[in-house]
């Protein structure tokens, strides 16, 4: 081992090893307990990127002053992305006030390192100061000061992880986003909202009848979804913070597949009021319904392109279900998928470059992605029952529903197919995931 780190005398390092181990065990036990209590989604990483960026995220200076830690959550976020390799330097803090020994950190294999400190404030809050360093170029990459209440440890950690992710990959992070999904236990259906890491799950709607097709409004404040509580599919818009619900489409027949326009003003939906399942557009308050397209088959699963110009959808007008797109103002539809006899559930990425969808491949339903510029299609999964793909706001990961051991689970795959994760809730069926938009800072 070459070089000695400069902070040997730091109190964290000097801490009795037994005590430290005890604290870790306690923390692990507490984490397990809260997991069981909340039926939280647990995440298992089943594949990782080829070249992972080596980075040091140490325990924060004075982190033990916090009732609930931050650095472990930052590490878990980065680890889960599959893009980072967390280089362990033990229970050693790198204070934000000093430039760490970058040569030593580099010799330990780290290309970047975080230095972070916790400073208690007189009002009971905490200041988290952090700076990120490049050990190769021997320079600071950037830093921030965040203030948090003790209970905001997770949000703060996700923000720090987002910062590191963005500085090191050039893409915005997605750790402080939320996801929506439906949990079925027996005859009980819950529409749940959780942090992107599955933590902090909360039920937005509890029902004895199915709930499907949750769709986030672009501002992340509302969800549109289909509920069967009146024995038929009806579309609601639900404001999460208040629980206010509004029926936006309850026409004679079925009302389903809501999707938001990029400006949050309109919804594209599927109605059967005039016969077969067809596409309509209405205002987000349910007024002003107009028909978008007319076909002699089924048209469903609309999804607005982020530029607002096109609506992607599934149609069997050509004999088998395929993906098409149509101008938002109406016009003639263009076919998008050509390979295979079952391509459904189109979901574009926020930058409009990629289209995720479900394809049937030798009788198995799998997540595929099409590069909308080159038209090249890649199948990303090797499972058999995939459904409902949705992109993380940065387009890097795709969340989808799958099946394992006869139960519905959620899984995620990177848009290059390399990173794979599985999220599950014990003893429940999980389905219909939807990744929320980027959080406004």
């Amino acid at each position, binding site marked *: 081992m070459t070089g000695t780190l400069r902070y040997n005398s730091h109190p964290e390092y000097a801490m009795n090893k037994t005590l430290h181990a005890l604290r870790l065990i306690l923390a692990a036990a507490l984490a397990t307990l809260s997991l069981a209590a909340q039926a939280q989604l647990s995440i298992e990483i089943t594949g990782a990127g080829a070249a992972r960026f080596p980075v040091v995220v140490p325990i924060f200076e004075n982190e033990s002053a916090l009732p609930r830690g931050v650095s472990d959550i930052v590490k878990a976020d980065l680890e889960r992305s599959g893009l980072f390799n967390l280089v362990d330097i033990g229970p050693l803090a790198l204070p934000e006030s000093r430039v760490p020994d970058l040569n030593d950190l580099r010799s330990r294999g780290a290309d970047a390192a975080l230095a972070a400190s916790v400073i208690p404030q007189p009002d009971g809050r905490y200041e988290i100061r952090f700076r990120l360093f490049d050990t190769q170029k021997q320079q600071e990459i950037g830093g921030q000061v965040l203030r948090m209440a003790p*209970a*905001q*440890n*997770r*949000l703060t950690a996700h923000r720090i992880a987002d910062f590191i992710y963005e500085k090191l990959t050039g893409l915005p992070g997605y750790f402080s986003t939320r996801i929506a999904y439906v949990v079925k236990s027996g005859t009980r259906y819950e529409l749940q*909202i959780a942090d992107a890491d599955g933590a*902090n799950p*909360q039920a*937005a*709607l*509890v*029902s*004895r*009848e*199915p709930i*499907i*097709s949750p769709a986030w409004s672009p501002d*992340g*404040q509302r969800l549109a979804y289909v*509920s*069967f*509580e*009146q*024995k*038929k*599919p009806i579309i609601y818009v639900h*404001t*999460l*913070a*208040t*629980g*206010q*619900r*509004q*029926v936006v489409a309850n026409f004679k*027949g*079925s009302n*389903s*597949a809501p999707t938001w326009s990029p400006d949050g003003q309109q919804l594209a939906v*599927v109605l*059967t009021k005039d*016969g*077969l*399942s067809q596409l309509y557009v209405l205002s987000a*308050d349910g007024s002003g319904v107009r028909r978008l397209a007319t076909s002699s088959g*089924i048209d*469903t*699963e609309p999804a607005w392109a982020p530029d607002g110009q096109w609506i992607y959808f*599934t149609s069997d007008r050509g004999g088998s*279900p395929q993906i098409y797109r149509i101008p938002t103002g109406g016009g003639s539809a263009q076919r998008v998928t050509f390979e295979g006899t*079952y391509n*459904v*559930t189109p979901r574009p990425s926020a930058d409009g470059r990629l289209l995720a969808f*479900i394809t*049937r491949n030798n009788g198995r*339903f799998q997540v595929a992605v099409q590069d909308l510029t080159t038209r090249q299609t890649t199948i990303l999964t090797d499972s058999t029952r995939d*459904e*409902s793909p949705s992109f993380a706001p940065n387009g890097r990961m795709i969340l989808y529903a799958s099946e394992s051991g006869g139960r519905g689970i959620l899984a995620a795959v990177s848009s290059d197919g390399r990173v794979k994760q599985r999220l599950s809730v014990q003893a429940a069926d999980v389905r*219909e995931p939807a990744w929320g938009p980027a*959080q406004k800072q």
Partner: protein
Amino acid sequence: MKQLVLPALLAALLAACSSPGGPEQTGAKVEDRAGSGSGVATVTAPSVSGSGIAALTDPNNILSKRSVFFDFDSFVIKAEAKPLVEAHARFLVQNPQMRILIQGNTDERGSREYNLALGQKRADAVKQALQLLGAKEGQIESVSLGEEKPRCTESSDACFAQNRRSDILYSGEF
């Protein structure tokens, strides 16, 4: 503000009308979202249940048979279902005040929303047959439950066949 409160009130009223045990809790309760900026309030959806006329539930009466089954990828009513469809059509003609809801269903393979659209075709097939036999359009609403309400939950062909069906519900049952 009035606009926002109205749906919650309506939902509460609907629940009060339909469940004799009194309305389920529908009020919006605001919780603080620990650790993050915005909260999520939990809402319980009202549920409906009710029963119809004696003849509709008497097991000796064909009107208590409510399911029409379909072949794989098919939306055609089979010959074996004809007596059932004819009996319901007769009942609707004789009781023009009666309303029905036809729920189409599919097996679980494939996209939920696409299956919802396929289930609609099964409901519409029964609706059209009833109308041909004299029932009025205004008496019938055809909807789809897609793959959401399977009668049988195993992944076998026998089970899938049970789930490819349309169910008839009378006023008071929906």
